[in-house]
């Protein structure tokens, strides 16, 4: 008896063990492909064809079982990864994922190329190509290879040039050194201006080039400062509604067109859209019609007035009849009945 019971107990324990293992072991014909860097598991096994056709709870159950099995395999793989503790000794156990192997497609569209600068356009037009320049130039005077520009350049240090010839046709009183310095400054400024113009053009054309490096602080124009101030005002959680204003600043919100004239719908826009909008407008207009039908009210009022007028007429005639009873007795009844008949007829006709 005890032996049987022990066997039973052992069998039961084995059942339980098998049950547990069944829940964590999954059998598949084809092995799954794993990309643990992306937490991705690819199952290339053909699905059970019979159950998946048509909607229903059976299909749901099959799909759920499939998902559970695949997730089990993925999690088992994750557990095999080298683990460590994050955040020191007491932190959670964290698996270190390998590099992702599967290339995901772009989330956002690729950036647009910047538009060519004025020089690039001109060069393309003329067919000018870049000539690779050597970094060192032979300096005849120093008899050695010197840099093209910079420290110890070929041609000597321009700051130490002690002679500046007066060119032909120039004013003899003019300071040539000052002129050279001024021209250099102008060239530098022009170059900087063109560089910023190119940046601005690229930014306007919508490329990924940000507008931030356009002007260093201190050199911004009034419009740019205004624009930046507007953007800063609106960059709050309430979209700038409760920001304190300067004493002379206007209180109304800035127009969406930025002070430009009003914008209209495009001429040949979506005509079906326009039509549906107009029909909606008609429906809204129609629903607000007054409940009171003015015509009927007016007609009713007129009928009442006519009835009263007829009643008064009848009263006057009866009064006259009382006074001139003897002369008008035959006519009196006729007139009264005539008036009454008229009264009865009019409501039906009106």
């Amino acid at each position, binding site marked *: 008896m005890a032996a049987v019971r022990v066997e039973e107990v052992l069998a039961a324990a084995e059942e339980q063990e098998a049950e547990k293992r069944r829940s964590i072991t999954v059998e598949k014909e084809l092995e799954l492909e794993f990309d643990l860097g992306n937490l991705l598991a690819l199952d290339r096994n053909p699905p059970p064809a019979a159950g998946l056709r048509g909607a229903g709870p059976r299909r749901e159950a099959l799909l759920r079982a499939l998902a559970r099995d695949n997730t089990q395999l993925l999690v088992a793989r994750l557990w095999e990864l080298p683990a460590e503790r994050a955040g020191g000794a007491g932190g959670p156990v964290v698996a270190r994922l390998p590099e992702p192997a599967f290339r995901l497609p772009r989330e956002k569209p690729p950036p647009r190329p910047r538009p060519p600068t004025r020089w690039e356009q001109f060069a393309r037009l003329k067919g000018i190509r870049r000539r690779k320049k050597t970094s060192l130039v032979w300096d005849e005077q120093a008899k050695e290879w010197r840099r093209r520009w910079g420290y110890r350049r070929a041609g000597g240090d321009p700051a130490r040039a002690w002679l500046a010839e007066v060119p032909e046709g120039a004013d003899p009183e003019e300071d040539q050194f000052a002129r050279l310095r001024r021209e250099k400054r102008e060239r530098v400024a022009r170059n900087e201006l063109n560089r910023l113009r190119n940046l601005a053009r690229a930014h306007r054309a919508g490329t990924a080039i940000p507008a931030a490096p356009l002007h260093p602080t201190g050199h911004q124009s009034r419009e740019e400062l205004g624009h930046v101030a507007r953007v800063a005002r609106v960059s709050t959680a309430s979209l700038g509604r409760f920001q304190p204003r300067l004493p002379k600043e206007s209180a109304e919100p800035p127009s969406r067109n930025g002070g430009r004239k009003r914008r*209209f*719908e*495009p*001429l*040949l*826009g979506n*005509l*079906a859209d*326009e*039509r549906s909008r*107009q*029909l909606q*407008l*008609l429906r809204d*207009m*129609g629903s607000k019609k007054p409940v009171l039908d*003015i*015509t*009927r009210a*007016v*007609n009713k009022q*007129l009928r009442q007035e006519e009835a009263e007028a007829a009643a008064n007429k009848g009263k006057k005639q009866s009064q006259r009849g009382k006074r001139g009873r003897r002369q008008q007795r035959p006519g009196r009844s006729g007139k009264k009945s005539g008036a009454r008949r008229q009264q009865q007829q009019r409501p039906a006709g*009106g």
Partner: protein
Amino acid sequence: MRPLTEAETRAVFEKLARYIGENIQLLVDRPDGTYCFRLHRDRVYYLSEKLLKVAASVPRDGLVSLGTCFGKFTKTQKFRLSVTALDFLAPYAKYKVWVKPGSEQSFLYGNHVLKSGLGRITENTAQYQGVVVYSMADVPLGFGVAAKSTQECRKVDPMAIVVFHQADVGEYVRSEDTLT
């Protein structure tokens, strides 16, 4: 040339509704093509999509008129219906007034319609309701506004005005230069 804004569309529809009521839907939503309203130099034109595409290629200062002119917006943005819309509104008119042959000419010269010239009038016409004026041969002559309701028309004396003149086909001759 541009489409009408919301406010302008509302003004136009309200004016049209005074004459044709809810039949405006039949103008907006036509089974035989897409028709639309466009604004050019304060005048509202009604034209088909095909014509619109062709008219879009004409320069703005060279464009005189397109499709059918329904009316114009005045300086204070009020919409005034013109007689050129008669062909589109006459079939859908809700309230009609027929004028006797004797006073047809008077109406076509721009005068109001008197009670003596009134032939027939639709029942249940309210006062100041927009009406379309016809001759006794059912030829549309123009627009008007009922000065008296149908009930009142019956009782009023013969020299009283029953329909105020708004537009008539005689304008095609009288204002030939300014009509677009």
